[in-house]
């Protein structure tokens, strides 16, 4: 089979083809009502915590800044609802530990219109002005990594960017939020691409879309035609063969340009910047209006959801509220995964809020997991399936055996653990059910802590 894929000239080497399960690919994006209370964690991204600029009891309107920061790798936050600040303190966070959060009680009956923000004309703004404007929106990568967008679009001094790669792959099973955004908000996406091109001084933009979403490509090509000739440069929409994990920027660049990003390097070292379609579509909407990021599109899906779909969810909405609205009964739901099934993490609690980095909520029932429930983990028999599926060309079998012996330093130094981006292909194909990627996450975390302790 590998031989066949070699002759077909596949997008990138190895990888897997999980069932796509895109239940909501044809459903229109719908809007969720305000929950009675929203919880805005201050830490939704890397970098220092922004500090709150509101007090308990203060009234805020939707879109008003509620936390500010001076750290370049951090972003401000905006009030997702109109209401009263009720509490500032520790609340359950997405990853488990409680985190500093701002709790806002929503005014019943307040509209979802953004009341804050000054429309402005950015048609003649310089790149630096646009970057500053992007920072003010509080935008982070909506694909899941939640890296601050203005930092990602900032080109290092000696580097030069020629191409903006727009990531519309959405290779994770079940998730369709990027797909729907491309279909329904193609004009906003094109506007966002133009801003990003001006911020990075790129002369062309290429939207990479997996070939199971031809309607998204058509919609974007329509929007490009409507936009006419652009002063920024040319925009293309390109189909790439469907394969997991194409949504990784290294894999997408391999698929589009046939070049490998050097290990440890960023796409900018090849003159490229990669951004997610959801991020750019949101930018295209927010920048001219001068508003902040207060909501995002989230795919609520899975066999345990009665009304699966892509919903516009105010940030900070508790997952419990979202699931109630989408019709997921608590009694039968067994596992709730934030993100996609391959890379997502199980929710620590139903009280955790939707943050900027959550692209999907997947609900699985007991019977969906039944065929995996009794499975035991067997010893590694070195079948080499993982080696043949690792898109990064690592040796997960060896890494797994080392992880079982806690030889974390050896994993990092001799077996390239640092290159692993936790796509989960090895765990997906393992016939012995060894939780490889989970072990690698632990190992990377320990190495990271060691490096911090040393410095």
């Amino acid at each position, binding site marked *: 089979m590998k031989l066949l894929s070699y002759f077909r*000239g596949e997008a*990138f080497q190895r990888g897997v083809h999980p069932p796509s399960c895109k239940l909501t690919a044809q459903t229109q994006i719908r809007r969720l009502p305000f929950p009675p209370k929203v919880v805005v964690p201050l830490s939704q991204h890397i970098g220092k915590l922004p500090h709150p600029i509101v007090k308990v009891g203060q009234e805020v309107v939707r879109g008003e800044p509620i936390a500010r920061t001076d750290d370049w790798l951090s972003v401000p936050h905006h009030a997702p609802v109109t209401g009263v600040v009720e509490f500032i303190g520790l609340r359950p966070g997405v990853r488990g530990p409680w985190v500093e959060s701002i709790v806002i009680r929503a005014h019943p009956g307040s509209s979802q219109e953004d009341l804050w923000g000054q429309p402005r004309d950015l048609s003649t703004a310089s790149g630096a002005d646009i970057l500053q404007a992007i920072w003010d929106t509080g935008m982070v990568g909506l694909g899941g990594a939640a890296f601050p967008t203005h930092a990602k679009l900032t080109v*290092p001094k*000696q*580097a*030069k960017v*020629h*191409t903006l790669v727009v990531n519309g792959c959405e290779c994770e099973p079940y998730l369709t939020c990027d797909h729907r955004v491309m279909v329904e908000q193609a004009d906003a996406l094109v506007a966002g691409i133009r801003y990003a091109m001006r911020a990075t001084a790129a*002369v*062309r933009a290429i939207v990479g879309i997996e070939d199971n979403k031809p309607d998204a490509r058509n919609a974007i090509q329509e929007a490009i035609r409507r936009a006419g000739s652009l002063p920024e440069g040319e925009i*293309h929409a*390109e189909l*790439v063969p469907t394969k997991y994990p194409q949504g990784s920027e*290294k894999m997408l660049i*391999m698929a*589009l*340009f*046939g*070049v*490998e*990003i*050097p*290990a*440890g*390097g*960023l796409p900018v*070292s*090849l*003159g490229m910047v990669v951004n997610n379609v959801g991020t750019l579509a949101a930018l295209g909407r927010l920048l001219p209006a001068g508003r902040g990021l207060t909501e995002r599109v989230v795919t609520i899906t899975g066999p345990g959801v009665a009304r699966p779909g892509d919903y516009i969810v105010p940030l900070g909405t508790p997952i419990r509220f979202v699931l109630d609205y989408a019709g997921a009964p608590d009694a039968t739901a067994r596992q709730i995964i934030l993100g996609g099934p391959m890379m997502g993490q199980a929710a620590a609690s139903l009280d955790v809020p939707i943050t900027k980095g959550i692209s999907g909520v997947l609900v699985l029932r007991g019977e969906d997991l039944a065929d995996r429930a009794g499975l035991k983990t*067997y*010893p*590694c*028999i*070195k*079948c*080499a*399936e993982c*080696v*043949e599926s*690792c*898109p*990064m*060309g*690592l*040796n997960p079998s*060896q890494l797994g055996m080392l992880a079982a012996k806690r030889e974390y*330093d050896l994993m990092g*130094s001799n*077996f*390239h*653990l*640092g*290159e692993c981006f936790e796509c989960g292909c090895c765990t997906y194909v393992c016939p012995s059910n060894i939780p490889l990627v989970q072990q690698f996450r632990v190992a*990377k975390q320990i*190495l*990271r802590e*060691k*490096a*911090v302790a040393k*410095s």
Partner: protein
Amino acid sequence: MRHVVWSLLPVCAFYVYQYGLSALASLVVVTASCLATERFFVRQGGQSGDIGDYSAVITGLLLALSIPPGFPLWMGAVAGGVAIALGKALFGGIGFNVFNPALVGRAFVQAAFPQAIATYTPSFLPGRFHELIPSSMALPLMQPADVAVWLKAKQLDALAGATPLAKWKFEGILANADELLTSLSGHMAVGPSPALILVCGAYLALRRFMDWRIPAAILGSAGLTAWLLFAFNDVRYPNPFFMMFSGGLILGAMYMATDMATSPVTPKGMWVYGALIGLLTVVIRYYSGLPEGVMYAILLGNAATPLIEKITQPTPFGKGGRGKKSASYPLHPGYISREDAGAVTPKKRFLPNKPKQTERES
């Protein structure tokens, strides 16, 4: 693992058809012995794995297919016990064994009972479904009955009981490759049918329960080595097809060398491992005192596996691997390489990719 057993069943069925009751008894006894030993160690030794994973069944069937059909049953039981106990349980159970358990068992009986393991009987004997080969029923710790006498009573000369490889080695008689491949012509002392094994192995490879690279490398390397020698001196050396289809090479290449736990995991390593086994097989067959060399070649290959893996680790993405030849877009003409621009690649702050020397020294 279940699929490997299923794919072996046609081979076993044809083997029983060739050799009759004795072959059936041998298959059953050896497999039962393997299962009993496995059960003992899993229960008593707290080993990983269990009987339900079918690995002991595979070991038993392969071991039975690799010994003569008339092999005394008590010796077969010993072979099965040794295979699991010394070949697998000693190392910690499934996944941790260094050598293929079936071959460990066979190597043991080859050393312990050299006479019995060299005594083959011809296939398709009349009356094979009614009587056992007399050596099968030897009492434990007793010498088996002389098969040559029994064969003489059936109007066959003793030479019919030698394998094609032994005939070539000691008598200089070559068998035809097509006869060897199908094993259908009568009165030949050959093992299970290579053609059938090839078909069943192909099924496994297509279903991806087995890596196609290892058998391809073994057969390619053995065939190439034999062909080179044949081209060098076609009187002294037999033709390469005789080498490839005789003895246990096909069975070894398809089912024994591909044992996952004892073969390399790296794709490049699989080629090296297979090439090594193919070369060693031919060398042992030609230049040693033994007519057959597949077993020792695979055991040596198993021993070399950790070393092969060490030198054939895959190249990670972005570390000098090749790019694709055709791509949708070229890099932009305005692209300035990092070196031109004097840019510094931002390094990850954690996980240094090389061990620090100072740490090692201290």
